[in-house]
């Protein structure tokens, strides 16, 4: 409970929570707000925003409803962003924890694998992966995670290494606790929260990477995403900049929202507030 209070005390966390909540609700309600395929033709092409009340944000080059695209695109961005972050944190935590506990040769070997992945810029790695395989949502998610898992891996390993040296872990050994129980009850619950705080930043990065992949035409072609909308608007950037700007603003808002939420998570997890 005190953890939630700490979160509530952080203005950034609350702001981030509000932004993400709005996004999540909008994304969840997409099929209700705009039933049917957002990629179907809804009206005449290139209607400007705020001119037609039934098409509040206008239409794009093919006459598709921009607002419908925006709302449905929110789903893709959030799903990809969150899923990619979950996969990255999962893979990273497992590898990092293994390395931290095992030590020795296993630790060295695993860290060299981490190094190898970290050398390639995350986006290029995702790009290469998607180019080789058929672009679809799961592939895009995996591609992004491949570039993002090394951060959580290093952090998890560092936390595990540090916590293993704490007195309370020594105390657990001395009372005769089994090493597996020590790992699961004493070390991991204390090691993983900072990794979880990192995941918010990874979501933000994943959303951006997904947008970039879609922009380059490497995203899933069957769904609308903000990246693909920005790409579509590129051709008419001079005459109708709103087609790229509107999804761009949505992207910025999402990234800022996840980042602020991550700050709130960090505030919640830091316990160094005691004065004496």
């Amino acid at each position, binding site marked *: 409970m*005190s953890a939630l209070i700490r979160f509530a005390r952080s203005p950034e966390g609350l702001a981030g929570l509000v932004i993400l909540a709005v996004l999540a609700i909008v994304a969840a309600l997409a099929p209700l707000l705009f039933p049917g395929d957002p990629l179907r033709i809804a009206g005449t092409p290139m209607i400007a925003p705020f001119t037609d009340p039934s098409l509040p944000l206008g239409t794009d080059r093919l006459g598709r409803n921009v607002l419908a695209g925006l709302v449905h695109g929110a789903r893709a961005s959030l799903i990809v962003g969150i899923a990619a972050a979950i996969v990255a944190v999962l893979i990273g935590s497992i590898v990092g924890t293994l390395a931290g506990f095992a030590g020795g040769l296993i630790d060295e070997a695993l860290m060299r694998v981490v190094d190898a992945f970290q050398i390639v810029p995350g986006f290029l790695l995702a790009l290469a992966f998607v180019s080789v395989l058929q672009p679809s949502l799961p592939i895009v998610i995996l591609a992004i995670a491949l570039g993002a898992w090394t951060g959580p891996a290093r952090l998890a390993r560092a936390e595990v290494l540090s916590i293993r040296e*704490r*007195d309370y872990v*020594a105390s*657990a050994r*001395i*009372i*005769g606790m*089994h090493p597996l129980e020590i790992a699961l009850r004493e070390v991991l619950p*204390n090691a993983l929260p900072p990794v979880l705080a990192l995941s918010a930043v990874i979501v933000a990065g994943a959303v951006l990477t997904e947008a970039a992949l879609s922009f380059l035409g490497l995203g899933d072609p069957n769904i609308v995403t903000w990246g693909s909308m920005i790409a579509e608007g590129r051709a008419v950037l001079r005459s109708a900049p709103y087609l790229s700007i509107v999804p761009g603003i949505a992207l910025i808002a999402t990234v800022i929202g996840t980042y602020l939420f991550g700050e709130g998570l960090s505030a919640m997890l830091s316990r160094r507030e005691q004065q004496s």
Partner: protein
Amino acid sequence: MTPILDVKGLTKTYRSNGRVVQALDDVSFSLAEGETLAIVGPSGSGKSTLSRAITRLVGVDSGAVQFAGQDWLALTSADLRRQRRQMQMVFQDPLEALNPRASVFSAISDPIRIHRLAPRSAWRAEVSALLDRVQLPTSLLDRAVHEVSGGQRQRVALARALACRPRLIVLDEAVSALDVSLRARIIDLLIDLQRQEKLSYLFVSHDLGVVKAMAHRTAVMETGRIVEIGPTLSVIDTPQSDMANALIAAVPRLHRGPSQ
């Protein structure tokens, strides 16, 4: 009467910054049942390494330890886990000594659960009884460790050690971080427990005043070796080694005169 703990020739070196450090150099001593042996010395003397070596937290290069009639250093894995509840340790920093996310109840009941010392239905009563013994209110049972003050945490750590029903407790600077008024109470508590349970204590400390209060015998360490060992009052009143002399001279005394 066989000593509860018999240490012979403990030696440990390690490499640090390219230098070879002799953490323990042929350390030998014994401890009788119901006795307190203090290990004193400056930082770097090896007393912390000694307490960690004896509790099997770190390994040694050579030497032998007999504890409760067993070849202590030869025990491994499941055997060691089973036997080591008889030798417990209370650490110096109460804020680090317990898992901050655990509850007071689980911190104290862990040993009872792990070693099946009581049926599950009796755990709460056992833990409450232990809290009583260390003079803590039973209302702390369901609090999280991080919600509890430093002085209280040290007593929870002591209750955790006692839950193991140990024969020997290593007190590694266990009262150094406590307030002065609490210190006296904990020392008296430890002495009472010792009398009631025939507990032995290995009391590592740099505070000679506390050592005088509660240790029967004292060993003085310097750079990994024991340079003097004997009844506490002898070591304090008639020190033989330079280190003992230095330690005694360094203890602040309640002076009656102003500084120069």
